Every structure is written in structure tokens, then in C-alpha cells.
């Protein structure tokens, strides 16, 4: 094993899948992220939640080096992002691309192989096989030759997931994979995310639906320009933290409290 100063400096540091330190990022002088510190342990399924404009997408893009921070750093398994790029796979928001682009499903999935292929090389049979395998995992085998403009929203999302799967990454960063997808696709995606976690991969998901956080995820970060809290869901996803992140009235909290009370009274009755 290679010996490096990092190991002496901070022996625990290598253990974090993602470590964000003092990250500040601004658009036109208005801070979008303010002094974020975040540690993501390997093998968790983590949700990033927060109101609109909280900087969730910005945080993901900063982790991927797509946006340049004003200050701060991101390290992946103890090394700067640039050295670890191959460990990360990115699933952008579905609407970030033009689905009328003249290409088919298989071709889009193959783009996930481009990084390993490097300059100039074209995908080979092996890459195609990997792409078909990934399509099978998301239940899209029959659609491999389909024109991407003919896909539904849920199918588009699955194609993007398959593209990330063929990257053979350790860490998956996904921007709203559940946005506007049908129930079947949501089920497929969450099963897939859980099987990734079972393989020891780390999955970070920008998430909107507070209702499902406790069911789907085991780790959570609440964000509103600043970090409100992060950690295991049962400790972190509390009423107080949610109020801090979303401001006074959270419809979700009211619903949750009513449910909780209903649960209590049922217990009393029984």
C-alpha cells in the first residue's frame, strides 16, 4: 500500500466517500452555498432535501467539479475530485438535455462508457453488452433501439440511470431521479438504488418528496444554502431540522404530526 502524508495527517479522512470542506459557491455574488461541511460515509443511500433554491443541484454539480466554488474543497475517498473522477457517476436532471436529439436508447447508454474508452476510441462489443446489461437492470431491454424522442418521462429517467450504471462507479450522484416519473419507474429506481447500496456503493440523491425520505433513504442532508443537518435519517430528519430548513410552516410536518397522533390514539385504544 502506498504511504501518503494524508494518512498521517488525518487517518480517518480516507474513510469518507465524499468529504466537503468549507464549500462556498456564488452566482453573481449571491451565495448559492454557504460554508458547507459534509461527510458522506461509504455505502449509504443519502437524500439531499431542502426547499427550492436551496442549492441542492448546485451542491451536486460542485461535487462533480462542474461548478467552480469560491472557496472550499471536495475530496472523494481522501483524494481531490480530479484524481478520483472515475469513481463518480452522474445522473443529471432528465430535463437538462434535448430528448429530440437524433439518437437511440442504446447509444445514450453507451455514452456512460466514453470515459473509460477515452479519446477517439469507439464502443466495442463488450461495451454494448455492458449497456444491454444495464438496460436489463432498469427494465428497458426492449427499448434499446428506440428513438429517444419516443420515450416517456419515466423511461427517459431509466435510460439516464442505465448510462450511469455502465460507468462502474463507486459513488452515484443523482439529481431528482424521481421527478415526474410514474409509480412503476419509481419502484424500479428505488429497488435499483437499494441494490447499489447492497453492493457497497454510495448513492447521493437530490430528493423532493419528504414523504418518502424515511422509507427510501438511510442518510439525509437538509440544505438551505447553509447545511442545516446531516446524518442518519432517524436522528437527522426531525421536525426541528425540517422547520429550520423549510421555515415555519411545513405542510409535510402537519401531516406527519396528525399521523403520529392518530397512531398514538390507536395505541391507546388498543
Amino acid at each position, binding site marked *: 500500500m502506498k504511504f501518503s502524508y494524508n494518512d498521517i495527517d488525518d487517518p480517518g479522512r480516507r474513510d469518507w466517500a465524499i468529504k466537503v470542506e468549507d464549500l462556498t459557491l456564488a452566482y*453573481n455574488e449571491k451565495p448559492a452555498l454557504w460554508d458547507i461541511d459534509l461527510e458522506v460515509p461509504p455505502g449509504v443511500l443519502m437524500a439531499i432535501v431542502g426547499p427550492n433554491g436551496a442549492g441542492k443541484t448546485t451542491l451536486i*454539480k460542485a461535487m*462533480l*467539479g*462542474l461548478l467552480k466554488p469560491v472557496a472550499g474543497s471536495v475530496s472523494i475517498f481522501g483524494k481531490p475530485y480530479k484524481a478520483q*473522477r*472515475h469513481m*463518480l*457517476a*452522474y445522473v*443529471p436532471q432528465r430535463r*437538462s*438535455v*434535448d430528448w429530440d*436529439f*437524433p*439518437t*437511440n436508447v442504446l447509444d*445514450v447508454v453507451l*455514452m*456512460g462508457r*466514453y*470515459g473509460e*474508452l477515452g*479519446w*477517439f*476510441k*469507439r464502443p466495442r462489443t463488450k461495451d454494448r453488452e455492458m449497456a444491454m446489461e444495464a438496460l436489463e437492470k432498469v427494465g428497458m431491454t426492449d427499448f434499446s433501439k428506440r*428513438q429517444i*424522442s419516443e420515450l416517456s418521462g419515466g423511461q427517459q429517467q431509466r435510460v439516464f440511470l442505465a*448510462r450511469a450504471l455502465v*460507468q462502474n462507479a463507486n459513488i452515484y450522484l443523482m439529481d431528482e431521479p424521481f421527478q415526474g416519473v410514474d409509480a412503476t419507474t419509481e419502484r424500479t429506481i428505488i429497488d435499483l438504488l437499494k441494490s447499489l447500496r447492497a453492493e457497497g456503493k454510495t448513492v447521493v440523491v437530490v430528493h423532493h418528496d419528504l414523504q418518502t425520505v424515511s422509507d427510501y433513504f438511510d442518510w439525509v442532508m437538509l440544505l438551505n444554502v447553509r447545511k442545516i443537518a446531516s446524518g442518519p435519517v432517524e436522528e437527522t430528519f426531525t421536525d426541528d431540522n425540517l422547520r429550520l430548513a423549510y421555515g415555519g410552516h411545513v405542510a409535510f410536518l402537519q401531516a406527519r404530526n396528525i399521523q403520529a397522533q392518530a397512531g398514538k390514539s390507536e395505541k391507546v385504544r388498543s
Partner: protein
Amino acid sequence: MIEILYNILFDYTLRTVALGAGVLGIVSGILGSYAVLRKQSLLGDTISHAALPGIALAFLFTGSKSVLLILTGAALAGWVATLLMISIIRTTRIKEDSALGLVLSVFFGFGLVLLTYIQKLPNATQAGLEKFLFGQAATLLAEDVLVMAILSLVILALVLLFWKEFKLLSFDEDFGATVGFPMRSIDILLTSLLVVAIVIGLQTVGVVLMSAMIVAPAAAARQWTNRLGIMIALSALFGAIAGIGGAIISSLTSKLPTGPTIVLCISAIVLLSLFLAPARGLVWQWIQQSRNRHNFHLDAVLLDLYALAQQHRDRLHGHHAAVLKTMNLKQSAVNRCLRELKTQGLVRQISRDLWGLTEAGLQQAESLANTQGGAA
């Protein structure tokens, strides 16, 4: 006809012009495809207009009218304009369309000022730089066409070499960056190739109409295919056809300028493609819509019969067409629909006005009623 063929083969001017215009069509068709797919149609317009001050400055500084020199000036100006535009977008709050408009008007205006200044110079009576405004294909020499052809081959080779990278750039730039490609450099390369393609066309088509050669072949090609490779090949073919066709047509009529004729040719191809292309064409979509409407009528009549049949123990019991007409919004179509359903074997004519479902029709109607949630 034979005369035209003879002229192309043996008339020096026409042969040169047709070849040059063809090459120009191919190159602008290829690179225009990327511009159109990346929603940068206006970029071509900006680059070509911005080339004008480069042309004028090249002449002012060197005093030479050598085409190669002047086109180098044009390319440099186009390139500077592009970089300026990119940095305006990156560093200010000005959006892409405004940045394009700004750069276009400032550069083109400056170019026109320089051109007027040059025309007033005592020694510049023969400068003839105005030909770059609307193009003057007749001034093309065999050497020019050779340079154009070599540049085109280089462009073609680079597009093939960077095929995967250019596709990534055009479809999902951010994702490309996360898998490790320097997307900004690839962007600059592709845009530089576009600059070269535009400069190649300046002498033939001119700065004002060159943008049409970038946008039109690609827009027409997109109508016919859903595959990137075929789209680019078709776009090149359309560009070549328009170039050569325009050159020939303008040679047949006196005083018909070549550049605008080429642009008219490619516009005709675009128009045809917009209407006639399968799937995306307007005519095809219109046929598809009326077919859908017709099928919907057939289904409606079948479901009406089914609804009536449910009121009888004998499901295949006959009913009067007049009853069906009262149930249907478009009464006149009922008889026609019934006859067509009969040829499909879904309905049987019991007597002249009495109609009933067949077994097959019953099954079909049942499955329809299920999928439509009993909407009938």
C-alpha cells in the same frame, strides 16, 4: 440538358463554381448539423457577419487582395467574435441570444464602416471587397477551390476522429465533463471548425447569406432521419445539391447571382422536407391525424353497437342504423363506418338497415371498453 452536362465538364468557370459551391455545401452541411442540434443556429449568422471587419482589416494592413490572406483575416475575426461571445456569456448576466446579437451588430457595423472607408481610398477602386457581402462565385479560381477542398477534407477527418466527443458535446455537455473530457476545449474545436466552414463559403455566398447554408441543410436533413450519422450525411448531400444546382441554374440565366440562387435552392429543399418527410413532415402528420380520427369514429360506432347489445340477451342481436345515428355525433359517417367494420368482419348486416356485432366484433368491443375505462 446535354449542353449543361457538357458545360459542367468543359466550361472552366462553371466547373470551378459548381465544384466550389458543392464543397461549400458539404462542409456547411456537416458543421451546420452540430450548430442546429446544439441550438446555435444564430452562431453561424454571428460568425459570418463578424468576418467582415476581418476581411477589410486584412486588406488595409497588407494591401493585398489575395483570397487566402483575406479569408485568413475573416477567420481570425470570426474566431475573435466567437471567443468574445463565449466570454460575454460566461462573465456577465447577458444571455446567449443577446450576446450573439451584440457581437453580430458591433462587428458587422464596424466592417461596413471599414468597407466604406476603403472605397474612398484613392487606390482602392478595384478593391472589390463588396463581393464578400453577397458573394461572387464567378471570381472563384481553381486554386481557391483546391484550398476549399483541402480544408473540407481536414474538417471531415476531424469530425470523424472526434465523432464521439462531438456527439457528447451536442447531447449532454455536463455529463461529458463528468466522465473526464475537457468539454470547453472540444467546444472551442468544434466552433473553430464552424468558423472555417463559414469562411470557406464567404467568397461564394457572402457574409449576409452564409448563415442560411449553415442552418438550412441541417434543418432539412433532421426531417428525414433519427440518426446522427445519417443526418450529417444527408445534410452534406443537401448542401452539395443546393450548391451545384444553384451554380448551374445561375449559369443558365444571365444576371442571376450564384450565392442567392444557392440559398434559394437549399430553401426549396427545406420546404420540401418540412412538408414531405415521413414522420416529421407536415403532410405525414396530417395523414396520421385524419387516420386517427377515422379509427376513432370506427371505435365509437363499434362501442355504440356494443352498448346496445348489452341491453339484449342475444349479444349479436341486430339494431337499426337509425338508432346508431342518434347515438353518434357525426351522423353522416355512421353508414360508412358500418360498411368498413363489416369488411373487417367485426359487424354483420342482418338486413338492409339492421346491423349486429359478430363474435370477433364483440371481443374487440369488450377489449376497447376495458382499455377506455368504459368511456363509451
